[in-house]
């Protein structure tokens, strides 16, 4: 297996984690990862070195943006069954953070997850989103303030309906 393929493969678990937090639904999340991988494999020859990791996060982030754009005109149809209820003692806590995440607008959620969960630098996130670093930082600040308010029990703002 080529070095490129090895680096893609090594990223699958992290991509799944990011996608799950981003999309919330386990099936949709894995669909996003799958589409990301297919695209990556197909574009292997177009990949001219650089950081595979950032590149994969970029593809996934864009795919999710497109998906949400397609869905934006109608209320989202939520999955009825969580196939992978995370069995852990902190389930209630976990659900709170998931709910708080769901109240964020897309770009803010992506920034928060890329920085905090995936450990990317501000610079990398700026490249992924195609915005200046200052925008990344303000999105991050707003995301943290919003999630904090939500976790502190303030009634989360109604989910954004476009």
């Amino acid at each position, binding site marked *: 297996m080529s070095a490129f*393929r090895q680096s*893609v*493969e090594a990223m*699958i*678990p*992290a991509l*799944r*984690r990011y996608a*799950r*937090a981003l999309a919330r*639904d386990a*099936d*949709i999340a*894995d*669909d*996003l*990862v*799958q*589409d990301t*991988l*297919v695209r990556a*494999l*197909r574009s292997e020859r177009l990949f001219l070195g650089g950081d595979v990791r950032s590149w994969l996060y970029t593809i996934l982030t864009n795919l999710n943006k497109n*998906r949400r754009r*397609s*869905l934006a*005109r*109608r209320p989202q*149809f939520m*999955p*009825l*069954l969580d*196939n*992978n209820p*995370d069995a*852990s003692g*902190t389930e209630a*806590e*976990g659900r*709170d*953070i*998931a709910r708080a995440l769901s109240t964020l607008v897309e770009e803010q959620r992506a920034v928060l*997850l890329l*920085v*905090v*969960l995936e450990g990317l*630098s*501000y610079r990398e996130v700026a490249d992924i989103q195609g915005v200046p670093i200052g925008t990344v*930082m303000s999105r*991050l*600040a707003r995301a*943290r303030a919003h*999630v*904090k308010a939500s*976790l502190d029990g303030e009634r989360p703002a109604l989910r954004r309906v476009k």
Partner: protein
Amino acid sequence: MTDRTIPVTEDELHAYVDRELPAERSGDVEAWLAAHPEDAERVQSWRAMAEALHERYDSVANEPVPQRLELERLERQPRRFIYGSIAAALIAFVAGGGVGWFARGEAAAPSQMQSFTEDALDAHRLYVVEVRHPVEVPGSERTHLQQWLTKRCGWDVRAPELASTGLKLVGGRLLPGPNGPASFLMYESSSGERFTIYTAKAAMKAAQMRTTTFDKDSAMFWADRGVGYVVSGGNDRERLAQVARAVYEQVEKNGG
């Protein structure tokens, strides 16, 4: 305390937490936090947030990677599964007018799920227009209907109570299905709109709902414990989703 009193900005607090702050400024921030409990509290809450995120989602990264994400498999069948995704289904369901996702990509190799759903839609179209004999056993004999269908089909057939969505059981019938008998239940609202629930044995793993639209009818499909369910109705997809959801919830509650 002369140089160090340069006020710390909010951006710097974030950068400090995210280890993006130049090392020489960290000491200033720490001093600042010691003197400003409100900022210290915020920084603390951001750290707790990070912990909560990891606690909630790190387990996903530790799960074994599902087969369908294995690179070798994706290369062998690069696009096969993509259109079979719930995401594609949702997009087709929400944005598509007329042609559902089944029409895309899978036409060359009709899946079991596709033919299953088509069978159900055929039955739906055939019987919903029937005025005098839409069913074999009327809804007034609900208990008998359920016992009969359960006995013939071999799984627990229950007619869900859909009054909450404004629907009343018209009745049901037995149909030939893809893998033996199929049960077919019909519901009706006071305004005459009809919905049907088709169930048959299905060796598919598809716990999540999928959907398709054909002509003037739409259907939602899912499978659970070896039984496939198709709820069919008219082209008002939100309404169909509402009904399908009610059916799904009751099937879940009754344990299939």
